Each structure stands twice: as C-alpha cells, then as structure tokens.
C-alpha cells in the first residue's frame, strides 16, 4: 500500500515533469497542448492500470510491466529538454517503453512468456533499443541526424554521418520486421485460441496487433523519408493508451469471477441440490459447459449426479478435468473448458468453497449409483423368476399334462376294447380314468395360478376381461391396452388386478367395482376401485406387499388409498416401453 502511494507520487512528478518539458519545448510538431495532454494520459493510464492490476493479482507480472511502461514513456520526454545531457539521455531511452509493451502483449494474460520465439523477439528488441541505439549515439551529429534545433549530442565521440545513418536505417528496418513478426504471432495465436481464450484475450490481442501494425507503418515511413507525409503521432499514442485499459478490463473481469466465489459460498450456504450446485459452479467459473463427476470409491470410478458411470476426459484440447480432493482422496472432478486451466487460482478457490457441498453431492450420487445397481439386480431377479414361471408352465403344459391325457386316452381305449370279464375290470378302469381326470383338473388349476392360459395366449386386455367376467362381484371394465406388453409387465398387472378383485370380493362389502387399464407415454396404469368400506392396507402380510415388490422391481409404483368408509382404490403404474 505504502509502496503504491510512493509510486503514484513518482508518477505525478514524472507526469508533471513531462508536461513541463513538452510545453517548454520548441521542437514539437503538434500543438503543444495536445502533445502535453496525450503524454500525461498515456503515462498515467499505464501506471494507474499497473498499480490496480498489481493489487488485484499480485502474482501476475503484468502490473509491474505496465508501471514500467508508464515511467519509460515519461522518460522519452527528456528528449524535449534544452540541456544537452538530459536531451541525450532522453534520446537513448527513447524506445525502452516499446520493449515493455512488446513484453506486455506477448505475455498476456499470464505475465509469462510462452516460447522461445517470444523470447527471441524480446531479446532482439532489447539489443535494438539499447546496444544499437547507444552505438548510433556515439557517431550521430545532433543537428544532421536528429533535428536542426536540438541540443548537442552529449554522447558523441566522433562524428561519422554515414555510419550513423547506416545504424539508424538498420535499426528502423529490423524494428519494422520485429513489429510485423509480432503482429503475425498475435494473429496466429488468435486463430488457435478456443472460444473462452478469445473472450479473455480479444481486446489486448487486437489493440496490440493494431499498435504494432501502425508502428511498422510509421517507421517504414521514416526510413523512406516520409513519402506519405508526417501524420499526427497522437492518434497512435491514443491507441497505445487504450492497451492498459483493455488489460485492466480483463483483469477486472477475473476479479468479478473471483467475486462470484463469494456469491457461490452464499448460494451453497442456502442448501444447493446437485443440479443447482452444477449451475452455481458454472456461474462462478463462467463456463456453462461445466460438468460434475463424483468419485465412487467402492467401484473406483466416476459417476454423474444420477449415478450413471462417467469417464474423465483425457488431457487434450477439447475438455479438461480438475480433480477436487479432500484428505488426499478424490471427491469429485470438474470437467470444464481447457481455458479455465489458465486461471487455476480461481478454479482452486471455487473448489475450496464448494468442497463440503461437493462431498455431500458425492454421497448422494454414490447412493443413486447404488440404488440404480439395486434396481437393476431386482429387475434381474424378477426377470429370472418370470422366466422360471414360464419354464414351469411350459414344462407342465407340454410334458405332464400331455402325458396324463395320453394315459387317459389309453385307459379309454382299453375300456372300449374290453370284452371278456368286462364286469370285473370295467370299474377298475373307470376308477383310474376318473382319478386321472381329477389329477388333470388339479394340474390345470395349478398352472393357471402360475401363468393364466388366457394371458399367455391373448395378452393383458383379454386376461383382464376374463378376470372381470369370472369375478364374484360385478365389475365395470375400462381397458384401453392394445397389443402385447412385455411378459413381466403383463403378469404383474394381471396379478395386481386379480388380487385386488379378490380382496374387494372378500373384505370390501362393495356393490360396485371398477377395473381400468390404460397405456400412455410408455407407462401402463391399472386401477381397481370399489365403493366398499375401505380400511385396506398394503403392508403386513397381505398379498399386496408381494405385488408391490413385483411392481417396484419393474420400476413401477403400487399405491393403495383406502380411507375408512370411502371405498378402496388401488393403482399400479408400470413402465412398459
């Protein structure tokens, strides 16, 4: 804080000094008022933005770089001084601020240079504005090389116009090349950038490119002795002044994002569900594509909020994952845009803020994963039971029943062929045949209980109709189910209806029973209602409990509403898509 105040004071002094030098100078091309104002605006814009940036993001070098550019900028106005030494020092420092500027644009937004090409550009720039500049000053005669009314060159050792001119033109040419290379690099970066990267980098990349293009243009104009005339320098300088504002805008945007962490803490405190948790995190990180994956230690894999297994993206350009850990164990992973990885600090603070809520959401997701597993195993069990029933029914129908019938047939044949000693054998045969008939009837009853023939042969609608016709009480039927449904669904629905009708007949004292079934949006709804005494329950030892299990295992629901004195309504909803 104190240091910032000192720097600000220096900035005021430097700014005022620069303005005084400009106003006192008789070498300015533009109106001195405009030049002075531009000088002040540019310098203070850099120093001010730099100070704010340093406070917001102390680890990021960009703030320091901008403060440096501001002071280097003010230093160039020493060249407006009347004193020979001050003038010469100003001349030597003339292009230092451009070095800072190149560094700023190339290292944006992290403050660190990315590759060797960038480093080579900066190094070339340093050589150009220090070594070459000083070498030039050693040979340059002020009047002929700089301007006719300028003071003496204090660094001049020996006047050599051709060497000085050669150095100056060489310096300018390399400067143009470096500027063009910088613009090319920035355009290349833009083309490779992902959407969020572009969102972050756009203002600085574009203003920087425009600035270097303008610089290359005007230096080229200088090299050929101003074939295009001398444009007003302050337009370029105002563009230059807009850069720190753009940098600051981006950094403030990130500050807003960090402000969102505070908002996130408040939001999570209000009890977030797993869906709103995802949304809150997406908002805080400004990445709408954010997904959450939760760690399930038991199965050693990640699942989504519904408990469905999920793979984390491999390191690549499309998506990136940040794993959130607690006590060294993974809790969850954020799957996000790779651009977010550059703002690791924000991601980490968001993760820290959401830690406990993420842990809760993880437990919920784990629970859902287990429920889904349980549901699947129950469905497998029902399916197995159902196919077992089908097998038993088929075995009885095709095997035992047929065999019994054929025995009955054989007995009948024997009976009809009996001639001798008829009176003695006939009653025995008849007895055997009658016993067989009884056995067949019993077997029929048994197989009907396993899977009613009408259900096997004609499906649910016919079976329900049959049920209604055979019911003890008169039943009003309203069935809107066509075609065949999955066997397990047909069976479950049939036995629910059968049990409900039997209960109504036994306990309800009803006079009117309704049985309705319909199929809508992949769900079979079956309802049995009566106008009896009510008071039925689904729990305990009633047959309804087993049926409820069967319905639930198919992902359905069985509900019983039976207020005393107001009838009983039993409803089953079974997915059948």
């Amino acid at each position, binding site marked *: 804080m104190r240091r910032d105040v000192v720097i600000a004071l220096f900035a005021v002094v430097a700014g005022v000094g620069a303005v005084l030098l400009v106003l006192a100078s008789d070498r300015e091309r533009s109106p001195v008022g405009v030049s002075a104002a531009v000088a002040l605006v540019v310098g203070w814009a850099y120093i001010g933005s730099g100070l704010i940036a340093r406070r917001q993001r102390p680890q990021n070098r960009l703030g320091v770089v901008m403060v440096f550019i501001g002071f280097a900028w003010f230093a160039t106005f020493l060249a407006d001084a009347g004193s020979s030494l001050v003038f010469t020092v100003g001349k030597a420092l003339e292009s230092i601020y451009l070095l800072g500027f190149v560094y700023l644009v190339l290292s944006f937004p992290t403050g660190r240079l990315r590759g060797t090409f960038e480093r080579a550009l900066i190094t070339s720039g340093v050589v150009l504005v220090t070594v070459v500049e000083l070498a030039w000053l050693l040979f340059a005669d002020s009047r002929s090389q700089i301007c006719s009314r300028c003071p003496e060159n204090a660094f001049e050792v020996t006047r050599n116009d051709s060497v000085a001119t050669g150095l100056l033109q060489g310096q300018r040419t390399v400067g143009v090349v470096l500027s063009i290379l910088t613009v090319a690099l920035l355009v290349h970066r833009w083309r490779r950038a992902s959407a969020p990267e572009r969102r972050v980098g756009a203002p600085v990349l574009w203003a920087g490119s425009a600035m270097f293009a303008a610089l290359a243009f005007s230096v080229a104009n200088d090299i050929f002795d101003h074939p295009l005339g001398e444009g007003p320098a302050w337009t370029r300088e105002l563009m230059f002044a807009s850069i720190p504002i753009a940098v600051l805008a981006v950094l403030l945007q990130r500050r807003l994002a960090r402000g969102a962490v505070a908002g996130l803490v408040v939001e999570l405190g209000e009890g977030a569900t797993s869906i709103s948790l995802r949304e809150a995190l997406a908002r805080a990180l400004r990445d709408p594509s954010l997904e959450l994956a939760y760690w399930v230690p038991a199965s050693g894999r990640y699942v989504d909020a519904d408990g469905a297994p999920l793979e984390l993206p491999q390191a690549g350009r499309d998506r990136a994952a940040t794993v959130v850990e607690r006590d060294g164990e993974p809790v969850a992973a954020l799957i996000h845009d790779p651009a977010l990885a550059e703002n690791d600090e924000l991601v980490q603070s968001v993760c820290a803020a959401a830690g406990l809520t993420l842990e809760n959401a993880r437990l919920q997701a784990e629970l859902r994963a287990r429920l889904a597993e349980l549901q699947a195993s129950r469905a497998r069990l029902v399916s197995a039971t159902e196919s077992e029933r089908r097998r038993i029914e088929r075995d009885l*129908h095709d095997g035992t029943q*047929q065999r019994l019938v054929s025995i009955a047939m054989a007995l009948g044949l024997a009976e009809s062929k009996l001639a001798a000693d008829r009176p003695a054998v006939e009653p025995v045969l008849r007895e055997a045949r009658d016993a067989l008939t009884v056995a067949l009837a019993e077997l029929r009853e048994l197989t009907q209980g396993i899977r009613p023939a009408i259900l096997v*042969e004609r499906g649910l609608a016919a079976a329900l109709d049959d049920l209604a016709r055979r019911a003890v009480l008169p039943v009003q039927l309203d069935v809107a189910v066509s075609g065949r449904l999955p066997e397990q669904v047909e069976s479950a629905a049939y036995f629910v209806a059968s049990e409900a009708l039997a209960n109504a007949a036994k306990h309800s004292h009803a006079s009117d029973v309704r049985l309705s079934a319909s199929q809508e949006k992949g769900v079979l709804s079956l309802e049995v209602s009566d106008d009896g005494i009510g008071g039925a329950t689904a729990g305990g030892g009633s047959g309804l409990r087993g049926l409820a299990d069967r319905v639930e295992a198919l992902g359905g629901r069985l509900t019983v509403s039976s207020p005393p004195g107001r009838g009983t309504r039993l409803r089953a909803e079974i997915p059948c898509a």
Partner: protein
Amino acid sequence: MRVVVADDAVILREGLARLLGEAGFEVVGLAGDADELCTLVEHTHPDVAIVDIRMPPTHTDEGLQAAKRIRERWPQVGILVLSQYVQARYAVELLTQGTERVGYLLKDRVSDLGELSLSVRRIGEGASVLDPMVVAQLVGQRRKGDTPLEDLTERELEVLALMAEGRSNKAIAERLFITEHTVEKHVKSIFATLRLPQSGDDHRRVLAVVTFLNAA
C-alpha cells in the same frame, strides 16, 4: 368319416389317431403346426379337422387362428378345437363365425372314447358341440347381480346348459330322463323368460343361448 389331427405333441397326435381309428374313423393325415394343418386340409378335404390350440411357433393361440382360417376357406370342413384349458371367449368367437360344424372341447374329454367319437361324428354331420365347462363358465359369468337367469327353475337351467352344449332336444331328453315333449316345453319357457326369439333350428339356438350368456 375322414378326419385329420393337428397337435405339436407327438404322443397326443399319435394317440388320438389310434383312438379315432379304433372308433371307426379314417385318419387321413397328421400335422404338427398350423401351416402343416392348412396344407393338409387343402389336400385331403377331411370331414373334420381336430386341432390343438397352442402350437408352434409362438405357443399362444395359433390353432384357433388356423381353425378360423379353415372355416373361412373350406366351410364344408368341420372343426373340433381341443385345449388343456377352455375359454368361453374362444367358443363365442368360433360360434359367431358360424354355428355349423364346429366344436370346442377340453382335452381331457379324449378319455371317454364314446363321447369323443359322438362329438366328432356330430360335428361332421353339421352340429355344434361345446364343452360343459365352457357352458359352466358362461353361466357363471352371467349369474352375477340381477339377471333373468334368476327366474329360471333348476330344471330349466339344466336344459339351458345342455342346449348351450349343442345338444338336440332328443339328446337332452335322454340325458335328463324326460320326454322330448317336456324338453320342448322347458325350451319354450326358457326363451320366453330370457326374451330370446324362438328358433326351431338347433344351431341358431346354440348361438342365441351363448350370445345371451356371454352378454356382459
């Protein structure tokens, strides 16, 4: 009388063929599924086809569907549908398509050779035959709540059931040990009580009674 037998269980197919041969029928062909049966009927034009309801490939009601197809294409061929279970609705479906030369019996009935051959013979001659169990189902359905069946006497109910089975007045008289004249009197009274149109024709009589019983 020429008959064919269709059943996917060899043991029953062969057994039935033997039984019917024993009873004096000429068994002209055997079939294991519905398609085979239709081909067989087309080539042999039997008097009666005896058909099991459940056959391959789906083991649901192919036999019944085949029976309907045969009655449509070859109406002179009588049909006897056999099944381990009887469903009143199948009887109604068969009868609505036509009341002549049709029968529907429980498989168990094959043990009584006399009854079986009588049924096949009657179907071949044009009559309709329903299993007593089908009739019992129909009467059971109809006996709920307030129905005109309540107004019939015990004896009239017995006569009604035998009529539904497709039996003639003479057969009913023999079964109940009463005179044909008394049967006629009962029948008249039943039709009046149930408000059914009188019909001298045995086949139509079956349909009228069954339709009445099946009405919800």
